[in-house]
């Protein structure tokens, strides 16, 4: 390993204001990489997936690591809020347990201490044949995501199937979160679900000179139930191989579902919001056969391929199990 795992040369930029970042990116976005926590970027650079001329570290920008909550406006998070704070903050634990759960499932304590919400939402897509050292990748044809023509995961694949593996995105999409993007052209707000383009090569619907500066999460109804389930090989550290986030606005006594948002993650190039389940469950009484129907729908939508550390059929089946578990827990069953 030795020298191959060393970082390549780059120029280090540490702007002190958002304005400075935007002006820099206006000129240099195509040869820059933005760094928040650095846990993904620096590893990708060690593996020579990226060799940017400039690394733009956001760490010196004031107030980007703040978050605030109020009943009317909901939760507003700066892009640099550390995952560890989302996991442990008492207000988030009480009002948005799904955010604490999802943040707490990322990597290890150290990675959560370093990693930020902005970085987790802007993760690159991952593939067993892509997230490897330069040396490892050189033993195979250059893949589509690396700029080649072949998909090493899918023999005859004409597009890239790399998987979006962020834990926070499914949870925040289920809550109807929005993200704020900034560039010299101004600010725009997007529904988080619209941030993901569904393209394995370029997963984010952002312009190269845009940066994600914040996240807004609406206030949840007090009685709303929300939960995040994650499947991976090593419970202590891994990226998800399949995940389900659910937000259910349910009348527990009558078991009537007013609103159901179910998002599946880590089985395709973007987190998938299952509108079909939302429509199926809306206004209906949740019971066995309906839950079965809903989880079957999720099973049909999930189409993982063999590009991660677990078999596609197992990942597909666990999605169904998670959806069923989420709906049953939402009804108040303890499973």
């Amino acid at each position, binding site marked *: *390993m030795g020298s191959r*795992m*060393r*970082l*390549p*040369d*780059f*120029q*280090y930029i*540490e702007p002190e204001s958002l304005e400075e970042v935007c002006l820099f990116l206006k000129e240099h976005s195509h040869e820059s990489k933005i760094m928040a926590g*650095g*846990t993904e970027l*620096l*590893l990708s650079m*060690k*593996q020579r997936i990226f060799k940017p001329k400039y*690394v733009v*570290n956001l*760490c010196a920008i004031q107030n980007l690591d703040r978050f605030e909550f109020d009943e009317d406006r909901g939760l507003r998070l700066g892009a640099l809020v550390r995952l*560890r704070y989302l996991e442990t903050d008492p207000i988030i634990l009480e009002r948005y347990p799904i955010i604490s759960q999802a943040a707490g499932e990322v*990597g*290890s*304590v*150290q*990675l959560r*201490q*370093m990693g930020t919400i902005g970085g987790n939402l802007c993760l690159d897509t991952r593939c067993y044949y892509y997230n490897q050292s330069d040396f490892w990748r050189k033993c195979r044809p250059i893949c589509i995501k690396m700029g080649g023509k072949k998909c090493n995961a899918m023999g005859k694949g004409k597009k890239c199937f790399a998987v979006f593996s962020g834990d926070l995105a499914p949870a925040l999409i289920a809550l109807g979160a929005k993200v704020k993007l900034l560039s010299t052209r101004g600010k725009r707000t997007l529904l988080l679900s619209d941030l993901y383009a569904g393209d394995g090569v370029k997963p984010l619907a952002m312009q190269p000179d845009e940066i994600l500066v914040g996240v807004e999460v609406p206030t949840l109804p007090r009685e709303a139930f929300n939960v995040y389930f994650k499947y991976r090989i090593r*419970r*202590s*550290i891994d990226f998800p191989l399949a995940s389900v986030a659910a937000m259910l606005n349910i009348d527990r006594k009558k078991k009537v579902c007013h609103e159901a948002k179910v998002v599946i993650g880590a089985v395709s190039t973007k987190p998938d919001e299952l509108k079909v389940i939302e429509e199926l469950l809306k206004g209906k009484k949740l019971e066995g056969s309906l839950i079965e129907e809903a989880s079957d729908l999720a099973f049909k939508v999930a189409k993982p391929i063999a590009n991660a550390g677990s078999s596609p059929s197992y990942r597909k089946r666990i999605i169904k199990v998670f959806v069923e578990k989420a709906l049953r827990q939402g009804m108040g069953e303890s499973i």
Partner: protein
Amino acid sequence: LKEMVTLQINGEGYELSIAPKKTLLEVLREDIGLTGTKEVCDSGSCGACTVLLDGKPILSCLTLAVACKGKEITTIEGLRKGETLHPLQSSFIQRGAIQCGMCTPGMILSAKALLDEKPHPTEIEVRKAIAGNLCRCTGFVKIIEAILAVSRGE
């Protein structure tokens, strides 16, 4: 291309001229000679390079040294006071929580961060705190015992 940076390590200031591409791990081991911090996977999976940054555990292999200015860095060398070992160090030795020793510095620093935040953790909390520190001699049981013993003041 090098930058002048002052790093605060174990209470001492080090003025260094370093290339931005140097990780904190490389600077600690190669430029300063503090080889207590270990390089194992060098890719953020094993926790052997854990150090404390302003008291919180981070991975020095995925941290740029130039980004650490103005922060207090604590490595395993900074734990003992004079000739007296830190209680965690003594406890690890006493209870045989060390085999090859490669995971030990990171393990002890993760444990220190936990005990500083929560002096009396449960066993589950200890397990979670060191979940990012891999021991391939598989001595986890004794490591957990050693940390819990310190929390009980033994």
